[in-house]
């Protein structure tokens, strides 16, 4: 261990930091006597960096030498940055040392295209082999498949890791053509399909033989950069939904574009669109845990998410025919659609309902955010006392409610003025929306 490792770590962390995925969830390696490590299904964050993001895995590149010239990426061939590569041994030892100290849950390994895609993959595979075979390491490993690598490399890697990802980065083919000419939609989607099929096959085999080899047991993920290209929220979200449904992805990550490129088509000196990224993540939650479909949230009339309202409130205001919902009788699906009721409070409501009838004062005890939910529920057939009835007041109060939360997360709500919102409903719209419920 010497100064060069220190320097390599610095360079290869700096090159890897723009990847948003740093979760260790979905793992299922329980501890085995005599072997180091295990995974924990919900994942564990071990630290939070100065930007407030979770550090769960040692997120580094094997090498930031890259033959490609993707314009949105710091590691592009034409960019003048220091280059370095870890040997498989160096990186494996580093991972183990950090894991033993409880700094990390494991390794998130990616690489620039050092030489050919297959050569880059081979270096990564060697690193992970040392970890798994030599150290018997059972911690979490997430590896990225390099676009353009062979099927064999994907198969090998998939048998060693917990999670794999292939980053889509740009949400449209047109974006790829101009900004990442060496990549094609095809060589991104081909490994994604292969991983999907491998996961399905391994699950089937596991039902037959308990000891069949596992393939990417924690599932596949991807990332899209938001704000580097003109793609709107609707395009991004439709693609996201297709990835969940057709490619069986576990997670889609969004990464607000940080201006690292100089290409004429890329935005320059703009702050990263953090509020937009936040709204996309909120919508992603609605897709994964709340039973929403993308077309309910964005459509041709509303192709972008409302910056002032979280997507669930925005949806609820557009659907007066569904509300108010009766807390004592609504089923789980319907409860989940109420702003201010989350997955946990919905379960609490169902649980508590089996013991007795719920009264308005119980809602808070069950974890319902009453100040948000009150416009959308009845309890015992009645709206909560003192619920405002003026529709504009309701829109305003819901928008105001998200202000402190966004401020706490240092999201740029202040930069918006409530009157400049692109799809702020007019007073009439709001009245129309809400009249059904009032």
């Amino acid at each position, binding site marked *: 261990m010497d100064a060069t490792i220190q320097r390599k770590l610095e360079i290869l962390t700096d090159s890897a*930091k723009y990847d948003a995925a740093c979760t260790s969830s979905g793992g299922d390696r329980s501890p085995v006597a005599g072997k180091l490590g295990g995974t924990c299904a919900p994942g564990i964050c071990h630290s939070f*960096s100065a930007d407030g993001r979770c550090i769960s895995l040692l997120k580094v590149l094997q090498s930031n030498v890259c033959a490609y010239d993707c314009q949105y990426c710091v590691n592009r061939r034409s960019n003048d940055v220091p280059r370095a590569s870890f040997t498989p041994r160096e990186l494996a030892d580093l991972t183990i040392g950090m894991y033993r100290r409880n700094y990390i849950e494991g390794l998130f390994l990616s690489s620039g295209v050092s030489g050919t895609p297959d050569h880059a993959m081979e270096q990564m595979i060697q690193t992970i082999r040392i970890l798994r075979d030599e150290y018997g390491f059972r911690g979490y490993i997430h590896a990225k498949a390099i676009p353009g690598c062979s099927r064999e490399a994907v198969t090998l890697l998939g048998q060693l890791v917990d999670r794999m990802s292939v980053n889509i980065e740009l949400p449209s083919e047109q974006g790829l053509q101009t900004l990442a000419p060496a990549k094609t939609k095809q060589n991104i989607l081909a490994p994604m399909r292969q991983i999907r099929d491998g996961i399905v096959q391994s699950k089937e085999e596991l039902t037959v033989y308990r000891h069949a080899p596992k393939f990417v047991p924690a599932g596949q993920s991807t990332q899209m950069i938001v704000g580097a290209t003109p793609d709107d929220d609707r395009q991004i979200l439709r693609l996201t939904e297709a990835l969940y449904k057709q490619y069986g992805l576990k997670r889609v990550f969004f990464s607000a574009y940080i201006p690292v490129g100089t290409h004429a088509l890329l935005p320059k000196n703009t702050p990263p669109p953090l509020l937009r990224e936040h709204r996309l993540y909120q919508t992603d939650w609605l897709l994964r845990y709340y039973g929403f479909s993308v077309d309910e949230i964005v459509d041709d009339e509303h192709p972008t998410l409302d910056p002032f309202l979280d997507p669930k409130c925005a949806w609820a205001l557009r659907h007066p025919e569904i509300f108010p919902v009766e807390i004592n009788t609504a089923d789980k699906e319907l409860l989940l659609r109420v702003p201010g009721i989350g997955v946990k409070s919905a379960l609490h409501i169902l649980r508590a309902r089996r013991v007795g009838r719920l009264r308005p004062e119980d809602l808070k005890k069950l974890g319902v955010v009453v100040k948000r939910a009150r416009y959308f529920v009845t309890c015992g057939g009645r709206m909560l006392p003192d619920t405002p009835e003026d529709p504009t007041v309701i829109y305003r109060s819901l928008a105001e409610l998200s202000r402190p939360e966004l401020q706490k997360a*240092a999201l740029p709500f202040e930069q918006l003025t409530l009157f400049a919102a692109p799809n702020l409903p007019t007073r009439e719209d709001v009245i129309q929306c809400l009249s059904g419920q009032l």
Partner: protein
Amino acid sequence: MLERTALIYDGTFDGLLSAIFDAYERRPMPQDIIEPDGQPRLDTHYETVVADPAKTERVRRGIRRQMGQEAYEHIWKAFLSLHPDRSMRIYEYLQLGFRIKDRLVRSLTDDRVIAVNKLSALVSREASHLLQFVRFAETTTGVYYCQIEPTYPVLPLLMPHFAHRLNVQAFVIYDKTHAEAGLYDGRQWVVRQVEQSLCPQLTAEEKQYQRLWKTFYDTVAITERINPSLRRQNMPKKYWRNLTELQPDEGLLLPK
């Protein structure tokens, strides 16, 4: 004749369970169960009870069978909260539980249930924070060492996790706040009271790893997204003192 009666038990969790057995044998049942250093009231007649392992086990089994494992874990964690009212709250929770059985954990709007769940949640939260923020250092004896300063004595909740994970690796977690240490020898763990703070000798390699980790930590943040309030929200300041990555460069090694 005094209006109220109360039992005084030895202040241990097992002692509390045993005292609850005694409470059910008294007629009328005592209004309160307190710890030796609890605040006595003038209108109350106190009786000291001695813990009996057989009674403890009967109550423990009764809770698990009638109210479920979830209820048992709630009272155990609520006990670890060290809250001045913990004994009383657990006593009331269990009285309700022995009456309504497995409906107890579903009675989420009952104030007695809410009171215990609240305490249990505080302790769970601290334990899950420490699963994240424990930082081991390698000592010259080969044992890994870590110091924590938690509000609640959560070592019993941490030890199984790290024992599984580090497996054959021996380690010590020293809880400075409660002068306790969790010891694991590679096979079994125990929690012991310790008289004074432990001062392990660290290896030379340890210093390098701490530097490496700090380098990683400082580099991985994205300058354009710096967000102090979000970091504080996710990683409360009270833990920073014992986090390797947040020490100034020169203070990297743990106390001599």
